[in-house]
């Protein structure tokens, strides 16, 4: 086990607050979880060496950063700085039916109720989920009342400073028929560790539009997750954007709890330099008649490494499931690496399930076509790469966020070199 983890466990052991009952359960699980090696299936391609080497301090430095302005994006802003929740976030007037609570200062009743929800959606197998369970203190809870549609989005931003650790935790509950947009933003580029976990309980007929922008770069280590439970006829539309860093990983789980629910997950990542990005996406079809459409695309340049594991698990009796997973990757350099594993585990016969994965270079014919029209090779390559990802940006339901991320993606492309 790593020294960092031993220290973290010692810290957790000495913390005593309302979360202690949960913490002790997760601590016990953590003690039984071996520190991952190359032989650990879930960490086969992702090494934790940078975390083991990182200089981290549990007492955070002062951080005065403010979230990046997104022009035209109307949102309630919840900000975490080095894992600490900015209480100013709670001064915003909220519409009827939307409740945002900072649990450490919430009523005893609310705290107790939250204990029953905490870590019920996020599966126990995620190592850093367990670590977040024992280290998170600044827990925020968001709830939308039955039948209420909140037009303004909720934006959760996690900012991190040098050598800091941030263990943020958010629980979102959409009651029956409610609808909400949540956009998670993770940023930072200095040596630091962030484990940001969000659990979403989407009750029957509720609708969640979700974004996670995992945009840490360089030295910022990020090991987080988002986990969704869908009730009957619930609907999830999620977009996940990843840039890589020394160590960056997102675990996501979509768990169907009621029939006729639907989920669409679009994810894309662009990696350059020595960056690593690892996405583990699991879909649990535990009940019949649900539909999943999953589209994951990656572009990997220079010496970067992409890891994707897409698991679709159709449980016994989950008949009439429709699940499709498509993973496409472009490799731009002979030092870059892509590891992808689209898995199907099926225990019901009347289902429609398919996955496809490709790793390819840029279509030479298309490249030639553009060149023949006088476009330079490098420009043509950027155009084609961009088109590959742009399709997914176009599918983002929120136009403002799409237009905010598009130029960032375009710039990132422009910097990528095709070397081989």
């Amino acid at each position, binding site marked *: 086990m790593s020294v960092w983890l031993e220290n973290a466990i010692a810290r957790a052991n000495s913390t005593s607050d309302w979360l202690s009952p949960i913490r002790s359960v997760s601590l016990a699980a953590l003690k039984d979880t071996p520190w991952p090696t190359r032989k650990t299936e879930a960490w086969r391609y992702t090494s934790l060496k940078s975390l083991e080497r990182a200089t981290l301090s549990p007492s955070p430095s002062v951080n005065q950063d403010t979230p990046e302005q997104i022009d035209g994006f109307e949102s309630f802003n919840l900000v975490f700085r080095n894992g600490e929740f900015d209480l100013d976030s709670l001064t915003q007037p909220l519409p009827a039916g939307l409740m945002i609570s900072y649990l450490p200062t919430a009523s005893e009743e609310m705290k107790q109720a939250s204990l029953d929800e905490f870590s019920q959606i996020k599966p126990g197998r995620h190592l850093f989920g367990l670590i977040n369970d024992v280290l998170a203190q600044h827990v925020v809870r968001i709830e939308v009342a039955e039948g209420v549609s909140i037009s303004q989005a909720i934006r959760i931003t996690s900012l991190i400073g040098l050598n800091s650790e941030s263990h943020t935790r958010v629980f979102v509950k959409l009651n029956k028929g409610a609808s909400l947009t949540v956009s998670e933003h993770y940023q930072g580029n200095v040596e630091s560790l962030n484990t940001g976990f969000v659990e979403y309980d989407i009750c029957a007929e509720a609708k969640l539009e979700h974004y996670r922008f995992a945009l840490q770069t360089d030295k910022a280590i990020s090991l987080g997750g988002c986990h969704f439970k869908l009730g009957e006829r619930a609907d999830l539309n999620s977009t996940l954007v990843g840039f890589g860093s020394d160590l960056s990983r997102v675990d996501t789980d979509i768990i169907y709890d009621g029939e006729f629910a639907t989920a669409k997950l679009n994810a894309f990542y662009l990696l350059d330099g020595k960056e690593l990005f690892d996405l583990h996406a699991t879909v649990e079809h535990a009940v019949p008649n649900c539909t999943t459409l999953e589209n994951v695309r990656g572009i990997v340049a220079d010496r970067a490494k992409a890891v994707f594991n897409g698991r679709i698990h159709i449980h016994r009796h989950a008949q009439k499931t429709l699940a499709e997973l498509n993973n496409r990757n472009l490799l731009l350099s002979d030092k870059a690496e892509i590891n992808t594993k689209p898995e*199907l585990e099926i225990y019901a016969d009347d289902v429609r399930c398919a996955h496809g994965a490709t790793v390819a270079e840029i279509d030479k014919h298309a490249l030639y076509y553009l060149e023949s029209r006088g476009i330079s090779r490098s420009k043509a390559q950027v155009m084609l790469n961009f088109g590959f990802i742009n399709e997914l940006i176009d599918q983002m339901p929120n136009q403002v966020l799409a237009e905010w991320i598009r130029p960032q993606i375009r710039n990132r492309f422009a910097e990528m070199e095709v070397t081989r």
Partner: protein
Amino acid sequence: MTEQIDKALEREYEAGFVSDIESETFEPGLNEDIIRRISAMKNEPEWMLEWRLKAFRVWLEMEEPDWAHIKYSKIDFQSISYYSAPKSMKDKPKSLDEVDPELIRTYEKLGIPLIEQQMLAGIAVDAVFDSVSVVTTFREKLEEAGVIFCPISEAVHRFPDLVKKYLGTVVPTKDNYFAALNCAVFTDGSFVYIPKGTRCPMELSTYFRINEQNTGQFERTLIVADEGSHVSYLEGCTAPQRDENQLHAAVVELVAMDNAEIKYSTVQNWYPGDENGKGGIYNFVTKRGICHESAKISWTQVETGSAVTWKYPSCILKGDNSVGEFYSVALTRSAQQADTGTKMIHIGKNTKSTIISKGISAGRSNNSYRGLVRMNPGAQGARNFTQCDSLLIGDQCGAHTFPYVESRNPSAIVEHEATTSKVSDEQMFLCRQRGIEPEKAVSMIVNGFCKEVFKELPMEFAVEAGKLLEISLEGSVG
């Protein structure tokens, strides 16, 4: 509907009989002494014994792998007998006339006549019974062409240089737990050498039979196709119906030198256990080939037997422009479990691989495809295409796909597709409305599903595979 389909898939295990043959069998147990005795039984040279002992020590340090999607009761390696041979084989019969007629009858019953005149022309057979090779047919005819086809125990004596040069080079001793065990205790198997520029004049085939109780079978096959040569090799396996599990841990190594081609086909029909999962063979097999420049290795397998199958025939595409293929049909029923697939390791430039896997799950069985496609940094212009299709029959079985794709070359292209389907009510109704029995309809639909793989089998084996899945007609018309 499902009942009809299940019924259609039910079939008697026809190879389940036991031959009444007096055997010399080692007492159960595994230690260095046993290995020395195996080596002594084979009258092996010292280097072979040393190689075995080294492997045994490696094995002792290793752990049984647990990553496959299979569940089975722990194997007690001390309760297995590692050597069993018919007593009549002790004096090494010089010709078929000297072979115990009961042995010949056994193979006849299995549809493998060992008398050359009765055989299908064009197929030479090595018959391995428990731990020994009983007979190898057409040897003279093959030797005329310079082809060596003999039991590996004999090759160790007659062609020690060839065996030393290639044994363990494709599947190293340490490769995995079961391969290491095989290196220590292997008893017999076939050795094939095709000289430069030679097209092997016949199909070569080895027929493996486990007969004795409580024994494991640990065969070892080594096929070397020298530059520009060509060989097609077939392998079949059966075992009696018994209540306890028996272990089969084989290693097959293929070496395809520049421009050589090896086609390796398997129809695996080990006893699968009864409908409740009692008995049956544990089939833990390591098969791998290495392709040098412009060489080709093609694996075709039809896996219908065994209680547990753990098998990944693989290709190391080392030479530029080399080609690897894997065509597989795996059918699991009752409580059978299969975790099978392939690895295609692309090292050379412009290497190509194709993977077609068809898994059929019925009853309470579990059927997994597990594959790895790796494009190494030097695999400029390499290509892979993978198609994994699963057919589920009934709602108590499982069909799984675990494909690993690793690419480190920007000019390499990997394409992986997987689908899952079932025998639909509409398909069944169409067939029945045209007057076809439900059983026949199912076997037609299942065979249609497997067609891309069956067409890769040599004719003679396609027939056997067809019988296993009750094919008809195809090939005889049109």
